[in-house]
């Protein structure tokens, strides 16, 4: 049977290298063609996982422990599908966007390709050391993308991001070293029964180091200091990629470690602590988003806040009855998918508005409603998901989380979610209100190509429709 797993990693590697060889600014068309291919590969993989459960692939015919095993289960397939679904419209968007921003295009395509290869490999990895390597590759490619434009602001943000990401992956690697020291294995499959059978204190230390490192990379409050300048200062297609996908990759690993590998040793106290940090992220991130004067910084702080919702999953799913845990787990994963689609649309729409008006302050977007209604409509639709209004994917996710909080009688998380929802409504409407203000006729306004606007609408619609087809996503999740 044809196995799409290695090709999901090889395809972006190949097009990225070809784009690099072709020279600065080239390779967009090839990237789009290969991305369509990758999306179909991910869909084939999803069908195989639904039909036959977890799939393994030994790279080069050499399985673990000597070689590297790739593994695809329900969660990794959902992440792979999400990644290819978001990157494809963004590739069309980027091609249109860089027509007017040629100076920041230079190495966009090669870096995006390497980023994608690292991300796909990360989702398919089945041992903790291979995960370290992919995590590091992902970080380096992402830093390169932040530094793409050059100039003091982006280079400073890239440097800060690089130092944070290196610190995070070093802590993770130390955890891997400790695990290997105790058990003599790095395979997720082999480690799980060993940890369940006997876990000395060293393993708890390893778990803490790995989770802390990944939290730093996911920009969980209070480790979020590097995110807003890095995501807010990059060119719009890059911001969209970073906010929608890159931080989700490290969150995916936290999920894997917490619910799979370290499930026998995680405690309710640790889960409550993660939830408390998530609550801090929701309140502090939303508050700061509301205070921003620049459009992309507002969207970046909104990411800080939305990451908080992801971490509410842990107190709701740890140590609770199976039913509650299931509902919280589904809500958490739906939130990953919904936020990915909506935030990609939001950053892309922000980039389009900034291109059209030539100004990056929120006060500068007056009149957008009459000039580029399609983009503003997409921004508002994405806002519906961020706020968590029905029928969006964000609503379905937050509904499941709320249900789990009610069923487990942890009312304090409900308060946080409701206040967070109100604050996010406030910052989304802050932008919308400004967009509807009249503008003097003399204000210069650049018309946008159609290919810049339609991908944004597509992403926003996908985040909305997710609320209606969420059950399919969840059935894929349960397939493994």
């Amino acid at each position, binding site marked *: 049977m044809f196995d799409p797993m290695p090709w999901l990693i090889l395809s972006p590697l190949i097009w990225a290298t070809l784009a690099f060889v072709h020279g600065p600014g080239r390779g967009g068309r090839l990237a789009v063609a290969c991305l369509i291919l990758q999306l179909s590969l991910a869909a084939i993989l999803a069908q195989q996982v639904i039909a036959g459960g977890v799939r393994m692939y030994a790279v080069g015919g050499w399985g673990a*422990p000597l070689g590297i095993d790739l593994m695809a289960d329900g969660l990794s397939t959902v992440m792979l599908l999400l990644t290819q679904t978001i990157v494809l419209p963004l590739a069309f968007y980027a091609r249109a966007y860089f027509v007017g921003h040629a100076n920041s295009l230079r190495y966009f395509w090669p870096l995006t390709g390497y980023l994608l290869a690292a991300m796909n490999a990360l989702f398919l990895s089945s041992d903790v*050391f291979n995960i*370290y*390597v992919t995590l*590091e*590759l992902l970080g*380096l490619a992402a*830093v*390169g993308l932040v*530094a793409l434009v*050059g*100039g*003091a602001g982006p*280079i*400073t943000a*890239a*440097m*800060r991001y*690089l*130092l944070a990401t*290196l*610190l995070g992956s*070093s802590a993770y*690697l*130390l955890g891997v*070293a*400790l695990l*290997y*020291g105790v058990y*003599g294995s*790095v395979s997720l499959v082999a480690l799980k029964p060993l940890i369940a059978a006997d876990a000395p204190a060293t393993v708890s230390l390893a778990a803490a180091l790995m989770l802390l490192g990944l939290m730093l990379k996911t920009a969980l409050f209070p480790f979020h*200091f590097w995110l*807003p*300048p890095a995501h807010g200062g990059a060119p719009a297609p890059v911001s969209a990629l970073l906010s929608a996908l890159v931080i989700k990759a490290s969150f995916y690993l936290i999920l894997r470690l917490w619910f799979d590998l370290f499930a026998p040793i995680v405690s309710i106290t640790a889960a409550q602590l993660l939830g408390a940090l998530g609550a801090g992220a929701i309140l*502090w991130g939303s508050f*700061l988003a509301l*205070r*921003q*004067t*620049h459009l992309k*910084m507002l969207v970046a702080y909104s990411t800080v806040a939305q990451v908080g919702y992801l971490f509410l999953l842990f107190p709701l799913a740890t140590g609770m009855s199976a039913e509650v845990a299931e509902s919280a787990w589904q809500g958490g994963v739906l939130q990953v998918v919904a936020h990915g689609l909506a935030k990609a649309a939001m950053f892309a729409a922000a980039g389009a508005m900034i291109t059209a008006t030539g100004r990056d302050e929120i006060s500068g977007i007056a009149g957008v409603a009459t000039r580029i209604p399609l983009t503003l409509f997409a921004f508002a639709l994405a806002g519906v998901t961020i706020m968590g209004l029905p029928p969006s994917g964000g609503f379905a996710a937050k509904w499941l989380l709320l249900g789990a909080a009610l069923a487990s009688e942890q009312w304090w998380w409900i308060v946080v979610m409701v206040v967070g929802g109100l604050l996010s409504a406030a910052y989304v409407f802050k932008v919308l209100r400004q967009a509807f203000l009249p503008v003097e006729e003399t204000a210069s306004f650049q018309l946008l190509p159609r290919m810049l606007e339609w991908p944004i609408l597509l992403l926003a619609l996908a985040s909305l429709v997710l609320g209606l087809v969420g059950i399919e996503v969840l059935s894929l999740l349960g397939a493994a």
Partner: protein
Amino acid sequence: MSSALVYALTGAALFVLGMAGLILQPHLLRKILAFNIMGSGIFLMLVGVAQRAGTPDPVPQAMVLTGIVVAIAATALALALARQLLDMNGEMRLPEEKTGKDRLDV
């Protein structure tokens, strides 16, 4: 004290030293060196801890080789960025944020 424990403790000490340097030192070159010390601590631990009954285990040695390659790539990227900052700002340190950690009014 077994030799594995000596390696592990030295590795842990190097890691903590490097982490403190990475966070506390303002000079970028020192930060980058501190990151490398941190890496060396982890590698020492990987090779040292994983001795089975006195015979070295080849798997962590392969991991350390991979780790060194990754660390070199990261160091090269950090140096390139630090040099660009030096050209633009005239000094090798990160500029202070305007109002503390989170910029309230940009």
